[in-house]
């Protein structure tokens, strides 16, 4: 669900534009956590394929 990551980042940018920087930081932190999860997911999937 990589589309969600972009959607969250776009949302964070809009929140910053609407003068809600702390909410924007929270959304960014959520995006980062989800991104690391998907990096781990896709990295290990690739590794299985290569092995």
């Amino acid at each position: 669900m990589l589309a969600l990551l972009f959607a969250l980042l776009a949302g964070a940018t809009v929140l910053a534009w609407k003068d809600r920087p702390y909410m924007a930081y929270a959304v960014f932190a959520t995006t980062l956590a989800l991104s690391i999860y998907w990096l781990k997911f896709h990295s290990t999937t690739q590794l299985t394929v290569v092995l």
Partner: protein
Amino acid sequence: MIMTPHGSRTLNAVALLVVCGVLIAAFIAQFVLGELPCPLCNLQRVGLAMVGFGLCLNLLYGSKPHHYGIMLIGGLFGGSVSIRQILLHIVPGTGAYGSPFLGLHYYTWAGICFFLVIVGTAIMLLFEGQFTQLRDKPNDNKFGNHKLAVFAFCLMLALTAGNAVSALLECGPTVCDDPPKDYKLLRELDAGG
């Protein structure tokens, strides 16, 4: 050398336009050359969008150290993804993903870009004058009356939203195919209809 808030905004706007240029080049490779981005490629785009978010904050509120921190986090994340993908294909005979551009594959170029982002951000952090000496006036509007900043911000927002649509079409609401063969959501909608 003293860097004024206006000068800092100009540099940040130019940097954001460069990030936008990389994302536009990725879209050209995807839609004109027909090279679908793999999941790790999409995660590298997420890294670029994170860097872009930090730059957007600098344009909106003026340069602050924690905005540069967000850029560094984005650069480190994107760099980690690209190094992971480079290592997947570094052994001779393990193939590559996508076609090379100027002798290097896209993920290698992405790794170089993220390295440059980290170096550039570290250099910008050296200029304390942009944070302490000449702050924006409180009644300045969000972009400090900087037209280039407004343009770069809007372009980055549009590209991030465009990537959300592109990733949704390619992966659908579930896990992305690896490697992707076509636009999964469109195929499933065609099959369903």
